[in-house]
């Protein structure tokens, strides 16, 4: 599709949605390119689900424009529905049906797409094809939901918090599946409040807060834009003197030293130079280390830097 390849798969302009007195989406602009995996990252209540449901044609916006695959809601609904694969956040599929019966039901709504068994194979539920939905684990149910989104061989996949509430193993399994769909060239819009999920899956990420996009870019760009490459954190036992934070800040390559929950946290540009210097300084101050951690900066750190809050603060 050479012509459409240049066009955005999804274009959202000045989107607004208010529920009673709560502004859920507040003048949002977005553009998702064809064949990219785009993530909406933000805490609960940031407006992610409202945004994705407006794009899916399930919720009407108060104002603003939404263009999906060059088409519009509601005038092109019939054509659009055939081309979208949708997975909602809270759907509970009928527990009394089997996996195969459920997928066959959803398959019957689409004009084209793989057979029910092929889709079940795609999400690795072959062995459960004859099991009742009620007997599936959380991860299996989520994969079934994914299968129901894939039955129409969609050009555009909307995934609303696909791994929320799953154990780490089930999450990794689901990530692998989503990565396969990316490789197959589908456009994906997913929402999540897990920074590791967004970092791993998304080509580009929009960080949302209070119904607005507060940062947009590839995960690397976002991390580079707000903080240094690494974060160092240490805890110290009781020493003869109070810890001199100013002396730490003076070390080359160390910035933003501050205390947090009894430990000391700082941003570091060059780990291999800064850490020996840090250890030397702590030795000079006769501080006994009880714990020392370094980690690469994440999207979580970006969110904290931008808003002063953690992603999962309620």
């Amino acid at each position, binding site marked *: 599709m050479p012509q459409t390849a240049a066009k955005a798969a999804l274009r959202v302009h000045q989107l607004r949605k208010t529920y009673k007195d709560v502004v859920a989406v507040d003048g949002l602009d977005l553009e998702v390119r064809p064949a990219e995996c785009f993530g909406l990252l933000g805490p609960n209540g940031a407006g992610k689900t409202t945004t994705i449901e407006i794009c899916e044609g399930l919720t009407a916006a108060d104002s603003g424009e939404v263009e999906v695959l060059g088409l519009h809601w509601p005038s092109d609904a019939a054509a659009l529905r055939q081309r979208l694969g949708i997975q*909602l956040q809270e759907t*509970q599929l009928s527990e009394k*049906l089997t996996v195969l019966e459920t997928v066959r*039901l959803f398959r*019957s709504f689409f004009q084209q797409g793989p057979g029910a068994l092929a889709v079940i194979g795609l999400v690795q539920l072959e062995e459960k094809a004859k099991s009742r939905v009620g007997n599936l684990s959380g991860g299996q149910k989520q994969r079934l939901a994914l299968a129901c989104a894939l039955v129409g061989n969609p050009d555009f996949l909307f995934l609303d918090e696909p791994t929320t509430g799953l154990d780490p193993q089930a999450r990794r399994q689901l990530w692998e599946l989503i990565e396969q769909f990316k490789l197959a060239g589908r456009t994906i819009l997913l929402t999540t409040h897990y920074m590791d999920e967004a970092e791993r899956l998304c080509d580009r990420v929009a960080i949302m807060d209070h119904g607005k996009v507060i940062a947009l870019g590839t995960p690397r760009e976002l991390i580079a834009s707000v903080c240094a490459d690494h974060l160092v954190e240490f805890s110290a036992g009781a020493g003869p003197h109070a810890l001199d934070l100013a002396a730490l800040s003076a070390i080359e390559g160390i910035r933003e030293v501050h205390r947090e929950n009894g430990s000391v946290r700082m941003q570091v540009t060059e780990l291999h130079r800064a850490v020996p210097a840090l250890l030397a300084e702590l030795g000079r101050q006769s501080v006994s280390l009880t714990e020392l951690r370094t980690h690469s900066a994440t999207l979580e750190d970006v969110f904290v830097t931008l808003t002063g809050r953690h992603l999962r603060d309620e």
Partner: protein
Amino acid sequence: MNSNHPLFQLTLVRFREFMREPEALFWVFIFPILLAAGLGIAFRNRPAEVLQIAAVTPQLAAPLRAEKLLDVRQLSPGDAEAALRNGKVALEAEPGPNGGVIYRFDDTNPEGRTARMLADRALQRAAGRQDPVASTDRLMREPGSRYIDFLIPGLLGMNLMGSAIWGMGFAIVDARRKKLIKRLVATPMPRHYYLLSFVLSRLLLLVVEVGVVLGFGALVFQVPVHGSLGGLALLCVLSSMCFCALGLLIASRAQTIEAASGLMNAVMLPMWIGSGVFFSAQRFPSAMQPVIKALPLTAVIDALRASMLQGATLAQLTPQVAILCGWLAICFALALKLFRWR
């Protein structure tokens, strides 16, 4: 219709969900049979009961024995009085002055009064009384006029209402609560197929439901079906559609099972009481009759009774059919307007 048609798949799913719900099976198929069997046994036609009475002399006992409905025991006056007091006999006959007779009995007890009439008739006839008016008895025991004949159409109507309203109401509200309706609306599924699938699965189950109740009535109690089977089938379909529309209306906005269940009971209770399932709706004051006649269940039960017991044709049932069509049209139109697809 091929098996990949969405309407076929949706109907199949409805059907499977219902068949995999043991409670639903019980209420729809087993409960009406148990109810009909229980009431049928309670109100069965017993042979006329023989009453026990006591006579204190053989001269009184002999003519009394001519009456087949009396079981006469000859007792001493003391024993007779004791038997009367503890209810072993309903009446005691003893000689009175001038060759007359004295009856002792409790006139507040229907058995006592009946025994008095039977005993007196037997003694008077034995003494030579001629009845001036010739009377003939015709006993009403043939199928079609017993309580069970009245009851089966009532139960059938009640069952049609309950299964349609519960079937629609719970399934729709449950799907809405689980966000399943919202998920289906996010697919290209035509929305009217979703509602239509409920109606189609209802029609399929209707065959079984009606068959079970009528079959039970016919086999166990010989309840007759005088009207045409085709007419009766049409009547059942129309009734079920009417209650489906009512169920759809009840479920059109409710978000929780509790809310839907309250609404369903509020709608059905007046009809359970007023529409003449167990006793004739004519017993209500005439001021209430227009309201009672307008209830859909009254129309259904009146029409079913007229068709099954009197052999009425659909043309003769125009008023009831018109009431049902009216309810169907109004409820369905309102439900479509109000229905919440998420």
